[in-house]
Every structure is written in C-alpha cells, then in structure tokens.
C-alpha cells in the first residue's frame, strides 16, 4: 500500500534513500542538494537506517570515499549539485571504469561563474561523458521513483555503472509536491536485498588489485566494456521500469511522448520545464494546434534511435537546452538530437533554444512563443536564446 504525502524533491529523495538503506553514504553540503543529506543524516542519528554516513570535507572526497566503499561491495549513495559535481568530475569516470554502481542524487544547478545557486543543467550536462547513467525528473514523484529504480539498474550485472538521478534545483528540490510513497517493505523487496558484488576489497583470502595502471596495450580494451554496458543499460532501464509499473502503477520509459503521436510541431525538453510545457500544449490543442512534446527522461545512455523514430513525423521541433556548451552550435541536447536525426529519412526541421540559465524563469508565454516560432520554423535562426535581455 502506498500513501500520498506532500514532499519537496529533496525530501522525496531523502525518503527514497531511507527506504533503500544503503551501507555507506559519503556526502558534503551544497545548495540546493544539502537538505537531502541533512535529512538523511538525521535518519542515521535516529537509527532509522543502518548506514555509515561519512561527512567528508569536500565533494572530491565524497566521490573518492564512495569509490573506496563501493570497491568493498557495499551499496553506496551520495548527493550533490553544481560546483560539488564539478569537484567530483575527476573521480566520476574512475567510478564508471571500475564498474562501481554508486547512485547519486544530483540537484541541477548552474555552475560558476558568475556564482549562482539556481537551476540550470550545466553541471549535469558537463558530466555527460563520464560513464554515468543520467536520469532526469519532471517532479518529486519521478525523482523518488527513479532513485529506487536506479539501485536496480546500476547494480544489474549487465550494467554495473554508476547512476545519477537529477532534479531541478529549487524548482523541484524545494517545492512541495503531492507524491505517492511506497511502503518500506515493498521498496526492500523491489531492490532485492544486499548488493551482490563479484569481488570485494575486504576479501583478504582472495586479494584483488583494483585501479591498476593501464597503458597502450590494455587501456583501450578496458574503455570498451563501459561503452557496451552503457548500450546494454537501455534494455535494463526499460525492464526495471516495467517491473516498477507492474508493482506500483507508474510507467516510465527512456523518454515520454506527450501528445506527440500526431503532433506537427513539438518541443524536446527535460526536467521541470516539461510540466509547464504540458499546460501550454493542452491550451494549443484546445485551439486546434497540433502541438506535442518529447520529454527526455534518460540522457545517458542517449536514446538516439528511439527519439529519431518518435520525431520522424513531426514537421518542426524545438529542442530546449537549459545549458549552453559554448561551442557555437547550440546546447548539448540539441547536438545529440541533431546527430540522432542525421541518418533518418524522415526528420523534422530543428530549432534550438537555450533558456533558463541560472534559474531564469521559463513561463507559459515563453513556451507559447516557441510553438509560434515553430509554425514558421524555416524562417527562424538555428540557435536562439530564450528569455535573455539583449
């Protein structure tokens, strides 16, 4: 039996962490993710979890401690945001290459500079090439559900990769939302007991050496399996989502199509903006405009074939990027989608909007203006900045 409660994104993630009851959590405070570990630390203090909580002195050490703990076979979690995630960058690909299924609560926040504490996706997008699975959430419910699923996905022998589940800073992390919480027992059953690691650093009778120097003769071969696992993870994500839907009724995929099947114009977005977009799409539909949306849930692995197929019959698509990669050709999501569509025989005309940097509001009129522009997409520049003062 699930119960309906009011929770912020951070509270929802902390609640999922309590139910997952990991062996080790190593984390460091950073706005807006701090609350997750604060709440969790209280769970530890009150004996509600069996976790050993390591309150480290930096995010670099948080991720380093996670690697050490995970190498013992422990189930390990952490949480961070923005500069904290940036400080972890060095260790993120090591965790992936060592095939350590660490699960992270990542609250999307703009990266410095200038310093800013509000939402955009620049922190998470810059971490996209480090071998971590990346799951975005539209709201607290998705964050809660995905975090529980992430344990199963990350620890699946076909995947064995670290996974981050993200929310949007403040917009999701600090806003109260109605969510359904599953019973502790059911979460435990769904996860299926302790992590089953193939070897452990603590096995003194069978000593293993982990993290060796790999030169020209082996490094390449050891990078390849990560690419393979990332590919394989798509199937696992869908399997876990299906089992989750059967047990708890909420369905997830690699992406979600919203009124997309017959759409003539559509946007692609991820995170909290999708909620606002759904309202705008409903309005446009009421006026007879065939508007729709493709919401990306899983950014890594990138569901390129699936997205290309889903967008095949749309005339014009605007990709919304809440980050700018300063490459001179649009944002990260845009370049991925443009690349995914290159081989397609049938494909929409594409536009890119970079929006919402540093927590800049994205509202209904702005999204309406995007759909209006899509109606004459051929006249639009390829990349535009939405909601910025000239």
């Amino acid at each position, binding site marked *: 039996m699930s119960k309906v409660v009011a929770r912020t994104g951070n509270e929802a993630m902390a609640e999922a962490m309590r139910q997952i009851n990991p062996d080790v959590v*190593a984390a460091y405070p950073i706005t807006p993710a701090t609350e997750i570990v604060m709440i969790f630390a209280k769970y530890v203090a009150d004996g509600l979890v*069996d976790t050993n909580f390591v*309150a480290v002195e930096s995010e670099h050490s948080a991720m380093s401690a996670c690697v050490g703990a995970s190498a*013992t076979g422990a189930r390990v979690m952490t949480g961070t945001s923005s500069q904290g995630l940036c400080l972890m960058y060095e260790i993120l690909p090591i965790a992936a290459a060592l095939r350590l299924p660490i699960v992270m609560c990542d609250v999307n926040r703009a990266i410095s500079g200038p310093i800013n504490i509000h939402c955009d996706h620049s922190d998470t997008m810059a971490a996209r090439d480090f071998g971590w699975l990346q799951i975005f959430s539209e709201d607290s419910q998705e964050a809660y559900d995905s975090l529980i699923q992430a344990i199963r996905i990350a620890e699946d022998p076909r995947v064995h990769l670290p996974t981050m589940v993200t929310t949007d800073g403040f917009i999701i992390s600090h806003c109260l939302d109605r969510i359904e919480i599953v019973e502790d027992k059911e979460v435990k059953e769904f996860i299926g007991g302790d992590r089953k690691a193939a070897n452990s650093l603590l*096995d003194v009778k069978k000593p293993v050496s982990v*993290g*060796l120097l790999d030169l020209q003769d082996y490094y390449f071969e050891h990078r390849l399996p990560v690419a393979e696992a990332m590919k394989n993870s798509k199937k696992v994500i869908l399997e876990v989502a299906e089992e989750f839907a059967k047990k708890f009724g909420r369905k997830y995929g690699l992406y979600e199509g919203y009124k997309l099947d017959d759409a003539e114009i559509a946007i692609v977005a991820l995170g909290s903006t999708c909620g606002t977009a759904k309202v705008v799409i409903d309005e446009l539909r009421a006026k007879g405009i065939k508007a729709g949306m493709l919401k990306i849930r899983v950014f890594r692995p990138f569901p390129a074939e699936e997205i290309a197929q889903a967008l095949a019959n749309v005339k014009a698509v605007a990709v919304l990027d809440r980050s700018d990669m300063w490459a001179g050709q649009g944002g990260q999501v845009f370049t991925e989608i443009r690349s995914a569509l290159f081989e397609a025989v049938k494909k929409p005309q594409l536009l890119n909007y970079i929006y919402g940097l540093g927590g800049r509001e994205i509202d209904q009129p702005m999204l309406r203006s995007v759909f209006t522009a899509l109606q004459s997409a051929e006249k639009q520049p390829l990349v535009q900045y939405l909601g910025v003062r000239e």
Partner: protein
Amino acid sequence: MASLKELATRKDPLTGGHRMCPGCGAPIVVRQILLASKDPVVVVSATGCLEVSTTIFPYSAWNVPFLHNAFENAGATMSGVEAAYQNFKKKGKIDQHINFVAFGGDGGTYDIGLQSLSGAMERGHDLTYVCYNNEAYMNTGVQRSGATPRGANTTTEPAGKVSQGKVQWRKDLTEIMVAHNIPYVAQGIIGNWSDLTRKAEKAFSIRGPKFMNILQPCRLGWGYRPDATLELARLAFETCAWPVYEVENGVYKISKPKEKKPVIEYLKPQDRFRHLFKPGNEALLADIQAEVDRRWGQLLAKEAPRQGSGQ
C-alpha cells in the same frame, strides 16, 4: 616486537619483480610496515611511483587487497573502505580484524592530498596513513614539493646561474598531523628496521587514525649510488636533518643520535645539493645547519622531561 626471524616467515605483502628503480626505498617502507601487521591488511595507494611501478596491468605486485583511485585522495578513498568495513562489522557480515593502510608519496600527501588526509584524520577513521617521503615529485621527474628541503635542486626550482635550488624551507607535515590530535603520529626512516617495525606495530595496536612520515631516499631524484639508500636515511637521522620520533596521545618520544653530526655529511653525498658546495654558498650551508639546529631544539623542547630528573 616481532623478531627479524619471525618477520622473515611472514608472507611478503609485495612480491619481487615490481618495477621500482634499483635502490628505491619505497618498497622497503611498504614491506617493513606491512610485515609488522599480524592481522590482514588492505592497502590504498595514491598515484605515484609506488602505484605505477607495482601495478602495470596485467600484473600486480600486491599479495594483499589493493586499491588505487587517484592522486590526491588516498585518505578519502581509504575513509570509504573503512566506513564500509565498519558497516559490515556492525551488521555481522565480517568479524576479521583488518589493518587499513594508505600509502602516498610526499606530493600526494604534503601537497595535493593534504585536504583529503586532514579530513580522514579529523573524522577518526581506523586507518594508518603512511607517507613515503622522498621529498619531491619523483614519478613525474623530480619536481619540487612542499616536502622538498631548502637548497635542493629540482626540475621546477632548479639550481642555476642566479638560483641555488629551492628557496623555501619544507613544511612540517608531521607536526600538522600532531595538531590533529590523533592518537599516534610517527616520523621515521628506512634503515632502522627495528624502529620502523616497532612504530608500525604500535600504530596497528591503536584504534583510530594514525600517521607515519617515513623518509625514503630516492636514488634518482637525490642522485647517489643505488647501494647508499639506507646509509643516507641513517645520515638524515644522525644529522637531525630528519628527526626520528613519535607522538602517542600527545606525548613526544624522540630518538636521539649518539652524536649529532654536521648536516653537510648528509648533504654532500647527494647530487641534489652539489651546487651548495660551490664557493660562495657557504652562507646558505650555514643557514641550513642553523635551521636544522633550530628545528631540532624546538622538537627536543616538546619532549616532557623524564621523571626523576631532579626538576
């Protein structure tokens, strides 16, 4: 304390055939410390000479569980390993006592890894951090570190026509660790196995964070013949250029040389100090001797007077 005979029967934690330089002191640090453990050990190493030379895939010289993560995070990495161990112990999944030993060079410990080390010590993890200190970044080709002594020639602060090598005095990491108020801090050398074994045994007998700073002559970076490694370490002790002492729960115990030799006896056999012996550098040599004397005096003053000394 375990006898030499007994130590010789214990299983070698680090097998021969690794790729450290002939005459390297680092494997001696590893063997002397790990052999002192009666219980199983788990090792974490920072990136550095020791790590790259003992773990070139598909080979590993380690007969004990070994983890390398990155350069600056041996302290934090071992914190995670130890936290997981404590968790498993609490849950009854493991009952075997394990000594957790992290190794880092002076670059990975004094400089880039200082924060990670400090955090691990402050949080009170039950681990022993060992700095195999060869006083420069030897793995990348003898660059200066915070541990490099004044006057030493390094590739990033070389002796030249207008410069005499490193300008600054080295930082005193051992005292920084003492200031963490951890139960055990030791400074030692290779070249006195019984002292190092005794110190390691003591470290392993204490629960909580322990730190050992072991001077390890590097024949490549210091420039001397490969068979002089232990001799040079002993000269560092005998000249008080590298005092050997321990601090147990705040109480200092200093090993004093029978006769304190002039520091030039330690500096002269090393290429890295050769330029100091050119005419015109007498004042710098005198300066180094004065600083060694000052630090030695300062250290002696920290040792409590023996009881019954008539005070």
